[in-house]
């Protein structure tokens, strides 16, 4: 805890132009009070770090967004919590979101960040190609608006947990704000925080404004590239902060959601009939999105099966390739053998030639030099003995050594020396001669 607090304060020091007491204290308390679901089995050993590859991608946007002309470098820990919730709550992770993410990537030096951002961007980008997702997004937001109500109660509880020690004016803002529907105007909270409210309002809507080139025609500023420099320290601070706020679940949910979008997008172009059904389905799926999880267990299982199927497919392909490669190798070897035989016969006494070949070569070459036949004999022995069962340790050892000894005997009946490529053998043969 203390280290993250320190990280946050240093973070804050660097970037906050208007430090206020509540920022410092609230940051710490936010973290301590946060519903941090570290028990999530996602990150058994790699707790904080494990999720770091993703966190910056999501939270980065907000941070940079907030550093827009109007509000330069004004950050606070409470805002981090808000923004991460915001982000998670964004039901339609718009394609344009990923655009801005992409642009931010390139302004940052941090390799980790850019890698995960690339990845995130790529799969978020996918829906972009089809017009459907945007429509989906539109209809889902209106659906969400009506579902709001329901969500709000969940939100309220969680929000309360997070910010119960935060300045009451802030909590008022958060209560009042409809975090789910970006189109809804942020109602002006009372009195003293009216100054900060534009900041908040800005920060909430601007990301959308910035990203909403086609989805949300809002009145906010046109997209401008934020001029924030991402440093490793900032990165560290982020990781700490976001992870303290229940990072792992957050990321998983966002991903699950993104994946759902992805799958929806995949289905879109593929199905002509039943497209409307699928759309309805995905809208209903999106209804269930909130911070904790975005898809039910059935969907998650389906996803798991998909991945497993892919792995299986790839394994089968790989195995076939491996078989073919070795088959080809064997074939080449055979051809070489045949050719060698022909050459030997041409060259006169085949046996003397081969003896010449065999004798001077270091002994180690001989044992493994078998043709396929002898190998398969030895192999069949192996095979049958192993098949007997697990309790064969003793006999197996005998088998393997006998396997070796058969190999050692083989070369005497051999007439050629084998090699994978065939070339080095012929070289040797030439040097011998």
């Amino acid at each position, binding site marked *: 805890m203390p280290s993250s607090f320190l990280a946050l304060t240093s973070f804050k020091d660097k970037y906050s132009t208007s430090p206020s007491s509540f920022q410092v204290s609230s940051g710490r308390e936010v973290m301590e009070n946060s519903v941090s679901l570290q028990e999530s*089995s*996602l*990150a058994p050993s*790699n707790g904080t770090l*494990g999720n770091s*590859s*993703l966190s910056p991608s999501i939270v980065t946007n907000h941070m940079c967004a907030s550093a827009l002309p109007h509000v330069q470098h004004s950050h606070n820990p409470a805002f981090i919590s808000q923004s991460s919730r915001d982000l998670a709550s964004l039901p339609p992770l718009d394609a344009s979101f990923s655009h801005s993410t992409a642009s931010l990537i390139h302004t940052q030096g941090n390799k*980790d960040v850019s*890698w995960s951002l690339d*990845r995130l961007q790529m*799969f978020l980008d996918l829906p972009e190609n089809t017009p459907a997702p945007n429509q989906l997004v539109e209809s889902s937001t209106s659906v969400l608006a009506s579902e709001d109500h329901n969500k709000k109660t969940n939100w309220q509880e969680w929000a309360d947990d997070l910010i119960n020690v935060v300045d009451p004016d802030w909590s008022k803002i958060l209560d009042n704000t409809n975090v789910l529907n970006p189109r809804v105007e942020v109602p002006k909270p009372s009195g003293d925080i009216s100054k900060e409210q534009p900041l908040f309002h800005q920060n909430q809507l601007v990301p959308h404004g910035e990203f909403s080139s086609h989805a949300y025609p809002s009145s906010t500023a046109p997209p401008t590239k934020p001029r924030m420099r991402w440093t490793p320290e900032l990165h560290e601070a982020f990781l700490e902060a976001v992870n303290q706020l229940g990072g792992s679940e957050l990321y998983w949910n966002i991903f*699950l959601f993104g*994946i759902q979008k992805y799958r929806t997008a995949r289905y879109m172009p593929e199905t002509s009939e039943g497209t409307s059904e699928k759309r309805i*389905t995905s809208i209903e*799926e999106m209804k*269930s999105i*909130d911070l*904790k*999880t975005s898809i*039910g*267990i*059935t969907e998650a*299982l389906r996803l*798991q099966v998909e*991945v*497993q*199927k892919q*792995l*299986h497919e*790839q*394994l089968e392909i*790989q*195995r076939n390739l*491996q078989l073919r*490669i*070795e088959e080809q*190798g064997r074939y080449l*070897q055979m051809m070489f053998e045949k050719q060698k035989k022909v050459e030997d016969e041409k060259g006169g006494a085949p046996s003397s030639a081969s003896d010449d070949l065999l004798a001077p070569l270091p*002994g*180690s070459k001989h*044992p*493994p030099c078998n043709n396929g036949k002898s*190998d398969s004999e030895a*192999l069949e022995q192996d*095979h049958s003995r*192993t*098949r007997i069962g*697990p309790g064969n*340790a003793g006999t*197996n*050892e005998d*088998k*393997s*050594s006998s*396997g*070796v000894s058969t190999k*050692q005997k083989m070369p005497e009946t051999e007439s050629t020396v084998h*090699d*994978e*490529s065939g070339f080095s053998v012929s070289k040797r043969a030439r040097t011998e001669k």
Partner: protein
Amino acid sequence: MKFGKRLKQQIEESLPAWRDKFLSYKELKKLVRLISSAELCVEYGKADVEAEFVHLLNNEIDKFNVFFMEQEEDFIIRHKELQQRIKRVIETWGPNGTKPSEAEYKDEMAKIRKDIVNFHGEMVLLVNYSNINYTGLAKILKKYDKRTGGLLRLPFIQKVLQQPFFITDLVSKLVKECENTIDEVFPVEQEDEEEIVKEQREAITVAGKGIFRNTVAALLSMQEIRRGSSTYGHFSLPPMDLPDSDLIHSFQLNSPIPIV
């Protein structure tokens, strides 16, 4: 070096019971290096050294075979059991069953679904196990030949190809059958909202399950291993074609360092 790291990663992600059943790649690699240094061979004679090496490899192969066949038998039994279980649930709590109960039915079906998906995953992982050990062996043999100028690889690998652990036909068949069962068992219609709300927390545990993570790791490892190497040759596999690569990369939620 890359393969060794990949293998290590996969082993780490794999189910605990499996971890010591993989190829001892690193040790064998060290051994190859040792063998290639003049001393050992001069002292013991190359033939003996090679015999010993082959002996070790055979031990590894035995290890694979034993484990693989055990697992295979286990899978056959579990597959049967799952079928029976599904049948039982449908017959008891299904709509036409002896004591139809939607709640029980849904409950049991949910459990079955989870189990069957994980079972499917385990089987696929066994196929992966087979493959990665084979790959490791092939690499070790290649290294051996390269360093000692030996001719061990080709004939030895022919032998390996016929080992039980490499013959994954039965397991693959079980996997396919399992997929059919999965299709039957998974609902076509969407669950209603209340169900989804109830189940939301469970979704997290799916992600955390060892099998899923292991699968993701395996798939990505495979892709990385096959991403063109410096020692690319006639016997090397071409780069892998993984259409959902980006999506699957996004599942790597736990790696602190991007696996590149």
